[in-house]
């Protein structure tokens, strides 16, 4: 048998790692690859190849566990291993950084994974990925209360605010923040979370229906007067007080910048 060309060797080696991630079987490895590998004093060619197959699976599994700690904990070691095996078989990494390896896990949980899993897992995974995205999102100087005080009164209705880049909104059918905080089970409940970064740390918090509606308007580019319309069913003084309190909370959380 002539020696394998470099391209062919890499094709067969990659196949040994990636065809059945986490479940390397010597008999599935290409015979010409095994024939090309020198045995060591202690391991045959398949045993040596298995070291790489195992390392490939373990390294990516641990990267995914770091990105999805609660998803992993709720599935348990066996369940999470099964998820990673199936995910990696469908979505091998296409990016030079492990930072990206978990990007499609929520989508895979929603549409690609056939094993029985708790119904809230997809939403929990979406929250966990939002936290990954926020962690290294672009930096920005958030709007301060002092800067807002400098806005003249007549400019307020048309004032356009926007979220900082390190902010995501997660809409879920389950209160996944409770799962994240340690609960093992939750009852379904429509939930909107904002996920943001403050002082380099990542936070998330549920928004009530009014805050969620106001924040959605703000994110869509509505002027401040339109954002405040979510309080239209309150008397004018109460509406102004509520809007002021909400804005103060967003500013304290360093959530906003001036749009445009």
């Amino acid at each position: 048998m002539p020696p394998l060309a470099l391209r062919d060797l890499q094709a067969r080696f990659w196949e040994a790692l990636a065809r059945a991630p986490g479940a390397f079987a010597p008999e599935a490895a290409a015979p010409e690859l095994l024939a090309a590998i020198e045995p060591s004093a202690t391991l045959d060619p398949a045993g040596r190849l298995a070291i790489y197959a195992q390392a490939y699976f373990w390294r990516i599994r641990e990267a995914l566990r770091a990105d999805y700690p609660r998803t992993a904990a709720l599935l348990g070691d066996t369940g999470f291993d099964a998820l990673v095996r199936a995910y990696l078989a469908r979505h091998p990494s296409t990016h030079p950084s492990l930072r990206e390896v978990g990007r499609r896990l929520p989508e895979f949980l929603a549409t690609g994974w056939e094993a029985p899993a708790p119904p809230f897992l997809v939403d929990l995974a979406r929250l966990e990925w939002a936290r990954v995205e926020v962690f290294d999102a672009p930096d920005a100087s958030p709007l301060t209360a002092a800067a807002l005080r400098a806005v003249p009164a007549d400019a307020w209705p048309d004032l356009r605010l926007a979220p900082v880049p390190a902010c995501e909104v997660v809409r879920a059918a389950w209160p996944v923040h409770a799962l994240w905080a340690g609960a093992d089970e939750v009852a379904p409940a429509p939930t909107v979370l904002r996920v943001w970064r403050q002082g380099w740390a990542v936070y998330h918090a549920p928004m009530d229906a009014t805050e969620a509606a106001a924040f959605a308007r703000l994110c869509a580019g509505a002027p401040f007067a339109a954002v405040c319309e979510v309080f239209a069913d309150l008397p004018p003084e109460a509406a102004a007080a509520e809007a002021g309190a909400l804005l103060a909370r967003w500013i304290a959380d360093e959530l906003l910048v001036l749009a445009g």
Partner: protein
Amino acid sequence: MAFDFPPLGHGVGLRPAHFGAVLEGRERAEWYEVISENFMLRGGRPLAVLDRVRAEAPVALHGVSLALGSTEPLDEDYLAALAALAQRIEPAWVSDHLCWGRFGNHYAHDLLPLPYTEEALAHVVERVRRVQDRLGRRLVLENVSSYVAFRHSTMPEWTFLAAVAAAADCGILLDVNNIYVSAVNHGFSPVAYLEGLPPDRICEIHLAGHSDHGTHLLDTHDQSVPPPVWDLYRLAVRRFGRVPTLVEWDDRIPPFADLLAESARARAIEAEEHDAAARPA
């Protein structure tokens, strides 16, 4: 041919577990090395920490995904990100590994072994040259730990590494732990490895720990540098002189002070060997 890489002394790999301690600044290494891919980010804490560290100490960029030995085309997006990071950080140098890790647009996130053949040699040399042209700087290439060797290799790893460095005109990052791990796994002489490398191209030395799995040693970077690796480091200092030396620790990471203690031990060994060489016979 002379390398103008700066004599940085003794450094440590900068990992997120030590960001706080490094920023506090009570104890510091002479220089730091970071994993390039972990800082190819849009923003956030890692980049902010790196900028602050870089303001006070030299930093080298150490990549794991260049995949110099892969038969896929070079990843131009990756090269652009690396070039941008190098422009931001102004690193002492940029290094990556003598291996492959990419196939069919997929990344293994591992340092996979090459056969040491004329075909692979020509392939790697051409890619190192292209990367150097793209980055506008010399690359430094590190030997990897390996668990597989190929029957059709026509030369030892050290001959291959030396030939790549000579033909591509690049530097060598000598990982003493990797030499030891591979020497045990493949049954070659680590001393022959050191003797087979050209002293004028050794730009950096890596030290780390490994774990013994009975049938093989695994390059785990999860414990202190073991005695046989220190012994080999001593030989490397004897042969290559004062070379910027870095301790890597990537798993079960100890307090920063313990990592610095490993680095101090390397400094002490280097000084002993330097003094011994200076004494008249």
